[in-house]
């Protein structure tokens, strides 16, 4: 096994301060709300507060009459009124029909933000309410109201492998379950925002808080009817994304762009938090049905999964999310026969979009719950059952029939996490209840495909530019974005390592669509590896011109030049060296081109969407989390005390940033699993604020213990694999299993809020006897003493 590698010398795998550290701790990073231009107007949106209605008319007179208002636009003012990322099922401004809360009637530009939002509230829409449908299972019924098009089932994805009926006969135990897995809001701390700067009627610049400047470029170009080259999108420093700034920011950008185009002024649009929570995309709520069977020895014989994914009123990225949910439904386990169906279903709920994990967390939560149920029925330890089934180097075919490249480290991460968490000791002698608190431990694994799914592989490429400055410092531009995950720093690290210079010599600037070619979205934990590979390619091309110059200065052949420690030197005789500054100066003096571009694309793969067989992803990362919790059964309160996270990361690029990703994934995963509930009432969020939508604070965050399993693989640059999503996916499932362990009941609905836990405890709730005594028929005469059941 190739784990426990020695750290590589140089910046790789180290902890040098991030490229943006000084700016961020001094408050001098300019997020989009911190940017203003002379003459700039402020935008606001008039939006629907009901989920399903016919629009009879939109009256903008009162809004226009407001003293500070400069423009009010409705659908009639939009050159091409469609905004869907993939499918054209969403209008930018609605005309005849409201399908979800947050649908836009009108856009307002005014001299102050306050005036803009005040005027937006004066826009009157006459509506005739229509029936809506708010549950993805109810939405597939024949008589359900249609949301958007001829059928509420927009698409179904499948995985079919082996004969489940035949394998079912060999199963000694079968678990059937229905899981209701709730959605989640991204709750990035910086709300959605952008600034649109028009240049006459020729072209436009958008500065946006976003993950995918190229999506915005396409969306704005199509809404305004401009060529792509006339739309320049610059990513502003972005205050968190988590998927919420992948697809959605195209909508506010198009709104601001329209107003800028109409008024000729720069226009800034910043979402108030309440609107951000109420109107932006969410993690998809899913209903996941399982029928899984195992034989006496615990070997999984078959698995059937049917998932209803609540897409909301517009498809957005839901089909792509469904593709990942579909092939992730079984996890890193070997199963003889598999049948998966994943339905993308329209409802009148808030629409689903990209969110860290991208459909995998929900199905993983279900799969790991079923694994624990099977273990209980078989009388096996949950870890033991996983060991019997987990993939490894000898058994490495996943449910799509793809044989994984070695090393397959699922067993390794399981063993490491379990050992570090003290699983065996905990099981042998569980801690006694302390006061009301009862303790439990749970485990969860994940198999994560580290690129875009086969269905999106046309987008899976990446561009980079490297410029060697005359003083030896280096400018790097990439097409993938920084949103806190550390992409700028990872790129800096890779470029520094490849050029053999100190990271402080390398400046990586924010992406801008005019400096690099379309690099696809910054999603799927692909940022560092895709940009990194493109940078390596650019450095390789730069060296075609650099090495001969260095060779001349060194008096050697170009093939002998190596770059290290800030020098170009002769391989094998490091004393013959010349500083990179000198090489750069010489190249500049001789007018040799010092700019190089780089490109990377993933390998083409084969996959059959009808059967779900083939290679959906190029390579995979494994992870295992073990959660230790304390639960107060009387109040239903969960305290997550420790999460032990073992990750198969390939090679570490930047240790602090990597750990930070794991911390963040665990904390956010815990929030999703325990406290973050999107309370929807007929499609409308009734808790659109941080008092009622509860995200974890520093006082809630568990102790997080990390084990990194490093290996050399053919993954990303210098062997790195994505970490952003694998760090999130297993946490909630491990917490669920730990809570069930503590309480001795099964809870199949996420999140595990206090009312849910109290309900799940039913008769086993410590105060159930009170309810029972109070509701017992009066005729029954019992002894006068009442007390808790034994």
């Amino acid at each position: 096994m190739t784990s426990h590698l020695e750290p590589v010398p140089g910046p790789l795998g180290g902890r040098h301060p991030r490229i943006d550290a000084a700016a961020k701790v001094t408050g001098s990073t300019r997020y989009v709300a911190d940017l203003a231009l002379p003459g700039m107007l402020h935008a606001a949106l008039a939006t629907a507060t009901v989920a399903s209605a016919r629009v009879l008319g939109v009256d903008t007179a009162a809004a226009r009459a407001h003293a500070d208002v400069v423009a009010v636009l409705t659908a009639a003012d939009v050159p091409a009124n469609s905004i869907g990322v993939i499918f054209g099922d969403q209008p930018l401004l609605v005309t005849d029909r409201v399908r979800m809360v947050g649908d836009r009637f009108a856009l307002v530009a005014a001299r102050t933000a306050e005036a803009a939002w005040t005027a937006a509230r004066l826009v009157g829409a006459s509506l005739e309410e229509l029936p809506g449908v708010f549950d993805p299972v109810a939405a597939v019924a024949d008589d359900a109201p249609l949301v958007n098009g001829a059928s509420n089932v927009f698409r179904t994805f499948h995985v079919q492998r082996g004969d489940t009926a035949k394998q079912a006969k060999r199963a000694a135990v079968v678990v059937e379950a229905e899981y209701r897995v709730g959605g989640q809001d991204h709750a990035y701390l910086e709300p959605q925002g952008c600034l649109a700067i028009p240049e006459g009627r020729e072209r436009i610049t958008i500065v946006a808080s976003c993950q995918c400047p190229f999506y915005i470029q396409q969306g704005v170009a199509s809404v305004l009817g401009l060529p792509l080259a006339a739309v320049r999108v610059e990513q502003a420093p972005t205050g968190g994304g988590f998927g919420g700034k992948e697809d959605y920011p195209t909508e506010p950008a198009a709104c601001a762009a329209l107003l800028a185009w109409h008024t000729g002024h720069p226009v800034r649009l910043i979402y108030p938090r309440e609107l951000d929570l109420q109107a932006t995309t969410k993690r998809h709520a899913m209903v996941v049905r399982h029928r899984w069977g195992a034989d006496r020895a615990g070997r999984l014989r078959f698995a059937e999964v049917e998932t209803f994914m609540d897409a909301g009123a517009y498809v957005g990225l839901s089909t792509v999310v469904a593709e990942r949910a579909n092939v992730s439904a079984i996890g890193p386990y070997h199963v003889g026969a598999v049948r998966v169906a994943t339905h993308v279903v329209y409802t009148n709920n808030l629409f689903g979009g990209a969110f860290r994990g991208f459909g995998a967390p929900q199905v993983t939560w279900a799969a790991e719950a079923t694994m624990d149920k099977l273990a209980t029925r078989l009388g096996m330890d949950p870890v033991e059952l996983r060991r019997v089934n987990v993939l490894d180097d000898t058994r490495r075919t996943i449910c799509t029939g793809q044989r994984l490249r070695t090393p397959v480290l699922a067993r390794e991460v399981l063993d490491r996490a379990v050992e570090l968490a003290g699983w065996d000791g905990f099981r042998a002698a569980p801690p006694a209840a302390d006061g009301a608190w009862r303790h439990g431990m749970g485990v969860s694994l994940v198999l994560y495909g580290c690129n875009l799914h086969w269905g999106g592989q046309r987008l899976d490429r990446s561009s980079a530019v490297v410029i060697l400055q005359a003083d030896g410092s280096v400018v790097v531009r990439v097409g993938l974005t920084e949103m806190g995950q550390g992409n700028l720093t990872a790129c800096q690290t890779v470029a520094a390592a490849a050029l053999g210079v100190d990271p402080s010599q390398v400046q990586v600037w924010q992406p801008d669509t005019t400096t690099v070619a379309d690099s696809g979205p910054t999603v799927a934990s692909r940022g560092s590896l895709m940009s990194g590979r493109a940078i390596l390619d650019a450095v390789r091309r730069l060296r075609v011109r650099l090495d001969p110059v260095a060779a001349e200065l060194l008096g050697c052949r170009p093939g002998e030049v190596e770059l290290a420690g800030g020098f170009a030197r002769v391989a094998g005789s490091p004393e013959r060296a010349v500083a990179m500054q000198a090489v750069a100066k010489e190249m500049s003096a001789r007018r040799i081109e010092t700019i190089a571009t780089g490109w990377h694309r993933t390998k083409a793969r084969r996959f059959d969407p009808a059967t779900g067989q083939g290679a959906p992803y190029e390579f995979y990362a494994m992870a295992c989390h073990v959660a230790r919790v304390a639960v107060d059964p009387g109040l239903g309160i969960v305290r997550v005390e420790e999460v032990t996270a073992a990750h198969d990361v390939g090679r570490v690029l930047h240790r602090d940033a990597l750990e930070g990703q794991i911390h963040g994934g665990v904390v956010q995963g815990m929030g999703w699993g325990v406290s973050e509930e999107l309370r929807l009432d007929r499609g409308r969020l009734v808790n659109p604020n941080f008092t009622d939508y509860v995200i974890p604070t520093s006082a809630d965050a568990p102790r997080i213990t990390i084990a990194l399993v490093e290996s050399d693989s053919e993954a990303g640059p210098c062997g790195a694999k994505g970490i952003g999503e694998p760090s999130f996916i297993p946490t909630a499932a491990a917490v669920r299993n730990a809570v069930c362990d503590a309480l001795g009941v099964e809870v199949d609905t996420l999140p595990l809020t206090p009312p849910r836990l109290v309900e799940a405890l039913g008769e086993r709730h410590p105060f159930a006897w009170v309810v029972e005594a109070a509701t017992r028929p009066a005729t029954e005469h019992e002894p006068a003493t009442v007390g808790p059941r034994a």
Partner: protein
Amino acid sequence: MARKPRDNEHTCPHGVSRRGFLGSLGAGAVAAATLGRPGETAPPEVADAVEPSKVTLLVNGRRHRLLVEPRWTLLHVLRERLGLTGSKPGCERGECGACTVLIDGVPRYACLTLALEAEGHEVTTIEGLMRGEELGPTQQAFAAEDAFQCGYCTPGQIMAAEGLLRAKPAPTVAEIRLGMSGNLCRCGAYPHIVKAVRRAAEARKGGGR
């Protein structure tokens, strides 16, 4: 908005009432949110009281004389009038901590403080923590411990840490976790933030301010 009678709302004759839905927006309107829940009409005398008043604010050791509308928040004035954009709006209703500043050395949400209330008090923002060209000890500790990701919560976190350490120079881990719990970090940088606060406490012991 959740409290409005639902039927009434769905049958509102002239379209749907949006009152409250967009209630707490824009810098100025925030003051209304502090006075009552969105959806409740603000008392008329507040709505009318838009006459600007002269105030003198002491921010980061400098005196600023300004005309300020009574309902303007300190956050609005810092950002939009004084150009001090280090303090961030995250929710503008006292729920996230991104706007945290020190008032007389005590952490306060600038979005829940009216600019007028700050008169006569010493206001410190993230911009005021620098020592000339150098980072202050708490800033240094946050950079050294990688106690941020996207950085949007970071100015607020640093101000909260600064306030915590001024009140309690040697906090325990439990006290740090609790003391910092008024500042959300959605990136979940909490483990590094706790380390940074401990480091800052050490640094201050050794002669930091």
